[in-house]
């Protein structure tokens, strides 16, 4: 499929797009947490994918995801530079907006919409997760997103990144440890309260 896409086969490109869209969308949403901006950035990522697929030097799925995530990281950094601090931090309070408004702002599981408390918690979690992900190195982000959102194996990620599987496990361990630290996670506690955030 990747080989065909590299020859700009439209159907192959669309198949790759359809597979990768949920992964890239969720990653960008977690990093930016701003619906309009997310759609712009995700669109840019896939248009770059179409333009640059000929330069991709792997035919493996893990390598494709790693490549696409690197493009997304560049686009996210650029978007963050252009967003003002106040816009980025703007989180509407539940109760001010109707449930339908949340749906248009942020794609979430519909069962959350009927539960404002759960919805609020989810938004906080997403924000914290985005900040924590941003604290990781680019390589660590590729590993944890490739592993937990794209469902890639350690061995495949290792091949994609030109590393030994053991080295990728170490990077994964450090990344998760760092995420846990940023999120205030520990044994028996899902994550710490808002006021305790570092």
């Amino acid at each position, binding site marked *: 499929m990747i080989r065909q896409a590299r020859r*700009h086969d*439209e159907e192959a*490109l*669309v198949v790759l*797009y*359809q597979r990768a*869209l*949920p992964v890239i*969308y*969720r*990653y960008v*949403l*977690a990093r930016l947490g701003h619906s309009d901006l997310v*759609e712009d950035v*995700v*669109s840019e990522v*896939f*248009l770059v*994918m*179409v*333009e640059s697929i000929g330069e991709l030097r792997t035919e493996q799925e893990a390598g494709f995801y790693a490549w696409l995530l690197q493009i997304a990281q560049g686009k996210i950094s650029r978007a963050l530079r252009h967003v003002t601090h106040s816009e980025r931090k703007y989180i509407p309070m539940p109760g001010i907006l109707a449930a339908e408004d949340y749906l248009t702002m942020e*794609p*979430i*599981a519909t069962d959350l919409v009927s539960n404002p408390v759960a919805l609020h918690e989810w938004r906080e*979690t*997403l924000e914290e*997760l985005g900040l*924590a992900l941003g604290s990781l190195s680019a390589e660590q982000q590729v590993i*944890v*997103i490739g*592993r*937990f*959102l794209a469902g890639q194996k*350690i061995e495949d990620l290792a091949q994609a990144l030109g590393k030994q599987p*053991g080295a990728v*496990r*170490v990077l*994964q*361990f450090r990344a*998760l*440890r760092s*995420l*846990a*630290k940023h*999120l205030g*996670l*520990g*044994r*028996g*506690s*899902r*994550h710490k309260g808002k006021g305790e955030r570092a």
Partner: protein
Amino acid sequence: MNPEEYLDRLIERREHEQEQLPVTNDEIAASLAAAEMLTQLQEVEVPPGFASRLEVAVRAHSRDLVRQNGRIIPMASPQSPAGSQRFPRRRAWVVMLRIAAVLMLACVGILTASTRSLPGDALYVMKQAEHQFTLTFAGAPQDRASLQIDQLRSALVDLSTVVNDGRDDDAIRLALDTVAAKTNDSREAVAALSAGPERATAQRSLDGVLAGEEQTLRHLLDHVDWPVRLAFTQQLGALGDPVPTVTHVMLRTQSNGTLLITLTGTHFAAQAELIIDGRPAGMVSQTTSQQLVAVISNSAWSPGSYAVGIRNPDGTAAQMVLNVDDNHYHSRQATPQPTRGFDE
């Protein structure tokens, strides 16, 4: 076993829902919890309308790049076998085979080119015939529905491309007609499926494409001329969007020599403009969702036909033809294909 390997093993066992190993320390437990939070991101769903719109953009971008790069089908030219002159009969066969190969490649080339052709291109008829051919041989109803939806998606890409390429109105109309026809065909094909999970899946897929169609049409509205804009508005109406319609036009001479024009219809927006022969005209004095009142100069009117319509701020538009005959005004329903220069 070092902690990195142990953590990875724990994660794998959780992924495969196998029996859990003991969590040896707080660091491992926290890392596992972080991994669990990451997997929660999988609950986020991509908005179907956005996914569909972006797919259209990906396809259009891919086609643009292929067109710009001028893809050429490589044609092999094998060397003549040594000593072939000594075997004239064999050489004749070789020549015939080569001709057959060239013809075959030419056919393949034409078919390939036709798949990338756009409305208005000479090969577009072949593309439509090819679509019809694949539909004719679609076996199960769900395959047929799936093909219809794919063809609607492809028609939307074509429409987007012809507008963005600045093709003429005829090409855009042809592309829009194809989209309208494929929209109806897709709806019928999905409705023809018997109730069940396959129909639900097809319906979801169709809903996503129709949402993309609506967004594509609205996005393109500002890039098309007035007559095409009317046709786009009609198609948006066919999708169920609230779009303006004009059902009656009335002209009245005022004492100060100006004319008061009143348009009656539906879905007029607050900032709607009066459009006469494809151009903004008059001064709007009052607008409700069903009526627009404007003042226009009397001197501009002489016996003849005028296309009188409105344009809402979102770009949707509607019009009627008004016949002016020595101070007698008759309005009739306008078609979106006026016979005179009503372009913006």
